[in-house]
């Protein structure tokens, strides 16, 4: 289990996360939802240990960072590195040296081509494949459905369900409410750096309605004199 207690994060005077308290239990899928700039990515980076923070993140399964697979919103691929080399690098980083990685190519990617020449969706699929090969216990996925085609979205959904069955801890974000609604056991609504709601499946409508209310004021559009 991962327990977050009184987590706060600031960039100079700008407070991005304020007194976050959350609990992620094994075998559950947790969704973090919020508008752009709400602090989702920062929260994920703090969880992954990429950013420093104030507060406590407690994990009962050992060193959290070493068992975590982190999918950034826009995975970065080094120039002139093939898909297969990327997968090798990720595996080597976790001490996994054996096996024919090509047999785990579940998205049927052209692994012998340079990853930087892949489309956005293909790059995301490659990054997800890498995380799965690392045999992580915790998965932090920032916008995993973003930029990926429908059939791959369905595969990702199935992967999440499989990981849940394998008792992994899964935390993800998405700006598409329906994808979280279908996948998650819990939804946490992050607004202006604070968790406004943490709700179990069945009560997600509260968050959806709240988010709809936060939509752009139509008078602003009118004032733009669009032609």
């Amino acid at each position, binding site marked *: 289990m991962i327990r977050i207690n009184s987590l706060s994060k600031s960039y100079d005077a700008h407070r991005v996360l304020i007194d976050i308290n959350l609990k992620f239990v094994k075998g559950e899928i947790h969704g973090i939802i919020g508008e752009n700039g709400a602090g989702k990515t920062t929260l994920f980076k703090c969880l*992954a*240990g*990429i950013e*420093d923070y104030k507060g406590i993140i407690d994990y009962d399964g050992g*060193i959290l*960072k*070493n*068992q975590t697979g*982190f999918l*950034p919103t826009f*995975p*970065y691929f*080094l*120039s*002139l*590195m*093939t898909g*297969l*080399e*990327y997968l*090798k*690098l*990720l595996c*080597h*980083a*976790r*001490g996994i040296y054996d096996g024919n990685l090509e047999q785990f190519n579940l998205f049927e990617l052209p692994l*012998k*081509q*340079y990853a*930087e*020449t892949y489309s956005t969706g293909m790059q995301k699929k490659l990054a997800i494949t890498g995380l799965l090969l*690392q045999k992580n216990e915790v998965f932090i996925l920032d916008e995993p459905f973003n930029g990926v085609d429908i059939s791959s979205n369905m595969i990702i959904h199935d992967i999440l369900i499989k990981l849940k069955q394998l008792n992994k801890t899964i935390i993800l974000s998405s700006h598409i409410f329906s994808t979280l609604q279908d996948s998650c056991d819990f939804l946490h609504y992050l607004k202006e750096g604070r968790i406004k709601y943490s709700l179990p499946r069945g009560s997600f409508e509260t968050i959806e309605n709240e988010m709809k209310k936060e939509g752009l004021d139509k008078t602003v559009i009118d004032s733009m004199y669009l032609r």
Partner: protein
Amino acid sequence: MRAITGFGVNPFLGLTIGTGIFIWMSIIVFKKVNYPQYFYSFLSLVVITTLSNKSRNDFLKITFFRKKYFIIRIFENLIYSIPFLFFLAYKGEYLVALITIVMSSLFSLITFSGKSALVIPTPFSKRPYEFSIGFRRTYLLLIILIIISFISIFDHNFNLGIVCLFGMFLVCITYYSEQEPVFYVWIYAQSPQVFLRKKIKTALYFSFLLSLFIAIPLICFNTSYTYQVALVIVIGLLDMVLIVVGIYSNYPARLNLIQNIQIITAIVFPPLLLFAIPNLYYQAKRRLNVFLI
């Protein structure tokens, strides 16, 4: 200006130093190179090509109308070539300066994608990534160095062979010239010591293997030079250690001025390697502690 500030130097001081270095290098080019004016003009065009990056140009094309886009591109190319033009004019090379202006303007029509779909096979693919990527970038240079080293053997010009051997290590050093993004360090489930040790081991192993392509023929054709060849290999390998620990000594920020000076002086004056390596290793370990446990 921002880049100079990021380098840890006062921008005006950096600009003054940069101008000084530019003038000094220009003087050297005109002293040492045959037909320096043409080489110098070519050099300015090489510098200008850094503005021809495809994604950068795509952004400009999307943002501005076609005519304005070309005006911007011509202007920025000319701004980049101004220091070269001044020096050419100072040397009285007005015609070459004029050609440089025309070529700079024409270069505004060119964009380089920088992304090639042609996958170059590499012997280092099993241990990504520095050598696999570096080899793909520099394989032609490596082949040229090996060819020149063979020419040096047949010409009985041992010094040239030694230069090629050291050049091989310098090429390998460039494989570590860019820091990887934080994600590529964070993924390692290792302590900073183990991480650095493995990086050093890979750098030593692969650079040593590459150096053998020059070292073995040099020794085979003249065994009396074994000692000198071995010495260059030892220094080259120590330089590899230096660059690996050096690149992480201020991670994830770029190396500061003092660290850069440490690295350059240690490469130029090898006895300093014995002080620079432990010092930079300690700094790298401390910086990596943030991302590795």
